[in-house]
């Protein structure tokens, strides 16, 4: 998979939930005491301006017809690792990118209320958008002080700064790598700020993070 000029071969995508307190509040979820994470599978990834496909199985079903945008700062692993201490976390990161965690919101809430796994609502094809490039680690002095924004049809919907992340990157790496072996190319998305909302076929989604760049994707209905 090519992101900008960089080829990566991720084996997994791990996402944090509820990592901005304003976002946790908008879903009446409690602010977590340790990182909450879930997985997205590789089939969901698109890059570089490809369209986000709104599945008909969602669009045509009143129970499930809401798909949301979530903009996130992502980082990419540089090597295989396990049990990393927070002070060494940055030794295992190759760089940063913008990530959209597209979510079938009604389906997610339906599943969560039934105590079912959060899997299917997050993993439709094209529901993980990454780009426009991977900015190498040393080009971003402080990943925890970057403006992050998302616009739909040129209207600002999410606007925050990565300094508001509850769990910062060293803690995230320590926690996740205490469970799982991470591989080179694996993608970790650090959670979304408040302001999430629905997208519709025809919408233009533009997301930017300071010092990383901007991505632009159209939403289309599945053929």
């Amino acid at each position, binding site marked *: 998979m090519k992101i900008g000029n960089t080829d990566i071969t991720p*084996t997994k995508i791990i996402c944090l939930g509820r990592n901005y307190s304003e976002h946790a509040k908008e879903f009446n979820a409690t602010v977590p005491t340790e990182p*909450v994470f879930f997985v997205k599978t590789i089939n969901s990834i698109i890059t570089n301006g490809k369209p986000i496909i709104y599945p008909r199985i969602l669009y045509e079903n009143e129970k499930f017809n809401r798909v949301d945008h979530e903009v996130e700062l992502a980082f990419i692993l540089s090597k295989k690792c396990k049990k990393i201490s927070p002070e060494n976390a940055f030794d295992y990161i190759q760089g940063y990118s913008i990530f959209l965690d597209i979510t079938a919101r009604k389906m997610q809430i339906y599943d969560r209320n*039934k105590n079912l796994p*959060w*899997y299917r609502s997050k993993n439709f*094809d094209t529901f993980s958008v990454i780009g426009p490039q991977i900015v190498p680690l040393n080009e971003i002095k402080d990943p925890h002080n970057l403006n992050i924004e998302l616009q739909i049809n040129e209207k600002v919907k999410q606007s925050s700064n990565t300094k508001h992340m509850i769990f910062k990157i060293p803690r995230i790496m320590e926690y996740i790598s205490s*469970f*799982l072996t991470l591989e080179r190319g694996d993608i970790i998305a650090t959670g979304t700020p408040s302001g999430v909302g629905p997208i519709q076929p025809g919408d233009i989604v533009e997301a930017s993070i300071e010092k990383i760049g901007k991505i632009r994707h159209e939403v289309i209905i599945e053929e």
Partner: protein
Amino acid sequence: MIKIGDITLKPTKIICLGTNYMDHIEETGLGIPKEPLLFPKTLNCLITNNQPIVYPKYLYNNRRYNRMDFEVELAFIVKDKCKNISAEDVYDHILGYTVFNDVTARKMQTKDIISQKPWFRSKSFDTFGPIGPVIKIIDEIRDPHNLDIELKVNNEIKQSSNTKYLLFKIPETFEYITKLFTMEPGDIIATGTPGGIGPVNPGDLIEATIENIGTLTNKVILEGEE
């Protein structure tokens, strides 16, 4: 990349079904699903026959989390890239069958379910996905829905059922999954476990057997005692 018997696979995902045998649904207290209930395991959990299942110290030393369970399951392997497959064409896209053990940090899973968190972390510790001993190619198994399935711990039978009791059979399962996601060659789908799940401890020997496929054997060891 993983070698199962003589076959090397490059799976991109592992999708598991939850609550797909009635007796297991009863023991979990979860409802009967109206459509297949899916969750992922990540590739870091895969090991093969005779490799040890490592009981993480993180779980073992924490009273809130110190239960790790076995779950024997029939798994099938995807043959080619595919999407939106209808039930009658499903077998054209399956390479073969194998035995899978969906090792689960049970107390952690229960805690996460109750607090409506994702079921992810309890299922995907390293070594929590033993698979093997071989992949039986699809033609070698006439009816995947009539196979005895059994799991023993230290030679004592803990799970014993037959794949005919699967609630969602393979055609329906695969049709549903491919309606949601693109599947890739080598992807692994585990069809759910029958009743009788229970804990294992360091030192235990787990033998999971499915008729016409073989026995998957893995010893449990405590992390750090490799």
